[in-house]
């Protein structure tokens, strides 16, 4: 029995409502300054993403205007902004994109919007699959566990990047015939699907482990002795306890999906011009045009993504610590 701090329930008769583990976690989390700041940064990104149309309306530009044609005086014949620092000016806060000369500021916020939308969707899909398969495997054990385990092994052996590249056109072709336009949403859906197919295994493994450990806990047996159905046990006894690792894992996997999505767009199999996208901006940033002329452009997607990923990871650490105060860092 651990002699840790325990409020004495005998004396505290006034306050009868107990603090749930979730509430305790919330209280601990609020005390963690790094965590709170990171949460604000992360929230900032989401707000910017959500409010991108509004922001660009106020700012008066959109990410689709081809300024290289609208304002040819700002560019040379290869589409490089003639003003120094990537054409940053009071008019174009973050400068102009070499090439077609899109406005970098609006492109960035819309790009973040696209990226976050996709990554969020993948995360949700992965979490649902992870719960479904992980918890099922862990709880049912036996053959089910064996098959899900082998499926996981199998998918883990996939060279994932190569598979992404190879399967993107296939998945896209599932939605559109090769001779029709590929609407952006189809690419988005395809990106979500391919990342999801190869993205759920590690979470499922973790949840399987958690469930396996939970299954050994005596409260599960208590429910069984009372005649609870497996469904009830999963729903009432296991799932609430899976929420903790799930939340922690989710905060770690979301930024990783952001970087994977960006990587795919970087390789040219993800979102393509003119749809603004974080990763597509990297792909632009790595062209000779930018490298040779002015690398200012590179910093906007780069720095914003580093800030985002760092903040999210710090948030993840804080969430983990809040749930599990014993792990000292």
């Amino acid at each position, binding site marked *: *029995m*651990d*002699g840790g*701090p*325990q*409020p*004495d329930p*005998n004396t505290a008769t006034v306050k009868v409502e107990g603090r749930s583990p979730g509430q305790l976690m919330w209280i*601990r989390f609020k005390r963690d300054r790094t965590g709170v700041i990171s949460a604000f940064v992360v929230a900032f990104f989401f707000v910017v993403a959500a409010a991108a149309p509004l922001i660009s309306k106020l700012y008066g530009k959109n990410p689709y205007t081809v300024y290289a044609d609208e304002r040819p005086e700002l560019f040379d014949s290869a589409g490089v902004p003639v003003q120094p620092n990537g054409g940053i000016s009071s008019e174009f806060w973050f400068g102009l994109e070499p090439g077609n000369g899109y406005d970098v500021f609006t492109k960035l916020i819309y790009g973040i919007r696209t990226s976050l939308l996709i990554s969020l969707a993948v995360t949700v899909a992965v979490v649902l699959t992870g719960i479904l398969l992980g918890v099922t495997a862990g709880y049912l054990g036996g053959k089910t566990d064996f098959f899900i385990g082998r499926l996981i092994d199998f998918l883990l052996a996939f060279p994932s990047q190569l598979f992404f590249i190879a399967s993107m056109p296939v998945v896209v072709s599932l939605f559109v015939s090769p001779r029709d336009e590929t609407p952006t949403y189809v690419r988005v859906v395809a990106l979500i699907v391919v990342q999801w197919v190869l993205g759920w295994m590690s979470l499922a493994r973790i949840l399987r482990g958690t469930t396996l450990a939970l299954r050994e806990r005596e409260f599960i047996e208590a429910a069984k002795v009372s005649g609870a159905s497996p469904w009830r046990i999963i729903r009432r006894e296991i799932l609430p306890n899976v929420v903790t690792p799930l939340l922690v894992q989710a905060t770690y996997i979301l930024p990783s999906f952001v970087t994977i999505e960006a990587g795919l767009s970087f390789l040219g199999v993800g979102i393509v011009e003119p749809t603004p996208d974080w990763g597509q901006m990297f792909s632009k940033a790595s062209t000779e045009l930018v490298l040779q002329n002015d690398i200012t452009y590179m910093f906007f997607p780069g720095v914003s993504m580093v800030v985002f990923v760092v903040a999210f990871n710090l948030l993840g650490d804080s969430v983990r610590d809040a749930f599990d*105060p014993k792990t000292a860092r």
Partner: protein
Amino acid sequence: MTTLTKDAGTPAPADAGAFLSVRDLHVSFRTEDGVVRAVDGLSFDVERGRTLGIVGESGSGKSVTNLTVLGLHNPQFTTVEGEILLDGQELITARESELEKVRGNKAAMIFQDPLTALSPYYTVGRQIAEPFMKHRGASKRAAWDRAVEMLAKVGIPNPKERAKDYPHQFSGGMRQRAMIAMALVCDPDLLIADEPTTALDVTVQAQILDLLKDLQQEFGTGIIFITHDLGVIADMADDIMVMYAGSAVERGTTDEVLRAPQHPYTWGLLNSMPRLDSDLDTPLHPIPGAPPSLLTPPSGCRFHPRCTFQDRVTGAGRCVGERPLLAPDRASACHLTADQKRTIFLEEIKPRLA
């Protein structure tokens, strides 16, 4: 199979002066939720060749005390005050390198769970030989031979071969024997055994207890034996210290503490313990309530919220307001007068124990 005539069990004569002397020890931990006063004003002595048994409920500070003696706490979060003298050497202020010379050499430790306390990565023999090499400057060979010898001594059959095994290849009882061998390899003067048998079955526990007693006879080691089982302590200890919420509430020789206990907490412990020869028809008499939180310990006597005798203390509110102290020799930390204690024990407690 060997049969032995029963030993009278006379304890080894006490050395002059205490080998280990702890004075007014305070240990507190800084945690997320506040400061935990795990040990709060504790003093005790251990003599060579004698066994001090420390009993107390979970969380009463037994392990912390003993880890502090060897300086094994994390200095980052821990504040230690007071005085620990081991063989005349002050340990609290000692530098890490000096502590290293003490640990495993003059004073050694046995932990509760031998499976996690032994490294899974090295052979048992190596783990036993290491401190011998370090403290005695022995060669690898010599240390290994010593390890095998120690394994034989603690009753591991076929020690030459088993020394090459890893801990996971040992059974629970054998692991604990290996731990003991490791602790004793440098002939320490002080052995701290932190609940060495709690994880073991009774039959194995009995083996280990016998082993420890016999080894003590042989080496003349002073032992601090931590447990929460009064039966075990009765079997092992020469002296007993009862701890409650970070401090000692009663101290004395085994006979004294068990036959004429003076503290309501000790009474409670004895009363709540079923025994093989106790009366079957009377229910047990548990101590009401639960152990206190060390973050916000009760004021005055730490035991007062659970004590059924506080109304008998002369001077209203003393138990709540004033902290009773432990007299230097054998005594108990309680505001009841000595007479009151004696009569309450004899008239109210003892009959229930019959």
